[in-house]
């Protein structure tokens, strides 16, 4: 029984190290960079972050993407961008850049354009895909200083720079579906502390054998 289990696991591990499994949706979303002509989508729910991502692989490891991130459903960060796989062997390293918006309501209103740069790295370990994301995000808003009667005294630009990060592992369930669990470590309004978050996610893909 134990031998059978070990053999099955070993076979599965070998199978998921296979080159053409590198394009698995879980690896594409968590380690970055979809296989050429693959569509991938990922969604995660957690506290405080909930995210949705869609991306498509092009030639040469280029991967356009669209995403929405929400914190406590009170801070919204929609964005479009592109990723590029730099290294893709046992280890994968991908760079991503996005432009979008940061939208936050009362009592700390923030509305303005945002840009983010990040790297995603990790490797395949059998069916697992441990990953680390590190990034930096900058958003700009206009602060309004109002008098008691509501007249606008002045508007001044304010920049918010945020370090972003996530650490976790994916798990490949089937050829087209995987899941992940991870910690989110965004540093939202430095130097105020930020409490780390947690999420669980699911990834899927299609069009991989075109």
């Amino acid at each position: 029984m134990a031998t059978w289990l070990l053999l099955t696991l070993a076979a599965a591990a070998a199978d998921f190290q296979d080159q053409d499994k590198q394009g698995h949706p879980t690896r594409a979303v968590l380690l970055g960079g979809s296989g050429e002509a693959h569509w991938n989508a990922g969604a995660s729910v957690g506290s405080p972050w909930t995210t949705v991502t869609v991306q498509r692989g092009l030639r040469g490891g280029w991967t356009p993407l669209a995403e929405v991130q929400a914190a406590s459903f009170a801070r919204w960060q929609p964005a479009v961008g592109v990723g590029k796989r730099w290294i893709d062997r046992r280890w994968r390293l991908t760079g991503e850049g996005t432009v979008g918006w940061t939208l936050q309501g009362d009592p700390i209103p923030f509305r303005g354009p945002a840009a983010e740069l990040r790297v995603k790295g990790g490797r395949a370990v059998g069916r697992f895909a441990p990953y680390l994301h590190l990034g930096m995000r900058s958003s700009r808003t206009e602060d309004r200083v109002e008098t008691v009667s509501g007249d606008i005294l002045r508007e001044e630009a304010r920049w918010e720079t945020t370090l972003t990060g996530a650490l976790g592992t994916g798990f490949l369930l089937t050829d087209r579906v995987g899941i992940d669990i991870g910690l989110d470590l965004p540093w939202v309004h430095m130097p105020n502390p930020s409490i780390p978050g947690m999420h669980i996610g699911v990834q899927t893909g299609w069009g991989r054998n075109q």
Partner: protein
Amino acid sequence: MHTHGVSMVRTILPFAFLIACGPPPKGVDYRGTRLAVVDMHLHPGDWQQVPESTQGYLASRFPFPFGLRPEQVAEGVLTGEAILDQLDDAAVSAAILFAVYAPRTVGVATNELVLRERRADTSRLWGLASLPVDRWDESSEAALAALSEALDNPGMVGIKLAHAHMHFRMDDPAYFSIYDMAVAHDAPVYLHTGTSPFPGTRTEPEYTDPAYLEAAIATHPRVQFILGHMGYDFIDQRPGDADTAIDLAVRYDNVWLEPSALGSRGSDPTGTNLPLVLKKAKTAGVEARLIYGSDGPQSPGFAADYLERTLTALEAADYSVEEAQLILADNASSLFGIPTFKAEK
């Protein structure tokens, strides 16, 4: 970056602790001795009573992501029960809760609310009463009568005033009837001194500089005046009028100094100002006239964090164990006539 990492860990720790086990034994270690702690400055409240601009200010100081939905956090830290949790977490034995009547700035926490929240544990919580001072010409009589009635309750052990938040001058004799009331009830008076970070507060010296309190102090020798924040300048984050506050304590026996909030992560980012003012007080010889308060709960973990920062600053300013015990607990017990607390092993 290193300090950021540390602050993050410190912010998480209280939560981890709450999940992991029960409250630690009351008391703190100071230079190898266990000392009891009384926090004389905590705010119970009602988030809905806080003006919008101040809600924004407070929310911006909560750790992310709590500032996004601050009403949930506020309800979780502002009740008597929640304050007891914060005290347990900080190993603090007892605390004094402040009533506040500053509808245009920091909001309102009525005397009734303080007495109600105090019921969470009347052996650990007491209150300072306050009064509205708006339209003083017409309403002073009724306001003073209500204050007197509040002070008749044994749970109310003093009076809280904040000229900058309540918009009345420190040297205006029209309001000295409040100190007469303090004499009648043998009630110490806590006064906010220094500028205030809250939107809508008065920033002129007549409302913030403790020098303007001298007339009241000199003419009311039987009233114990507690100079809150020691004249700290919360706008420019520097000691501000601390020297004036210390000088008043040197010259008047009825003046006490309370270094709350000025050493917090947000108000003293470099961590140098709290040790500096404590050193100044010790050099001036008024180290036994200090009294500990945090100005929490602010956000979860603040009461514990502020206590830790204060202990670090006391040690940096070379306070003895005996001095620390007076500051951390015994001065509050004698000043407010509440029981003396002992540290648990």
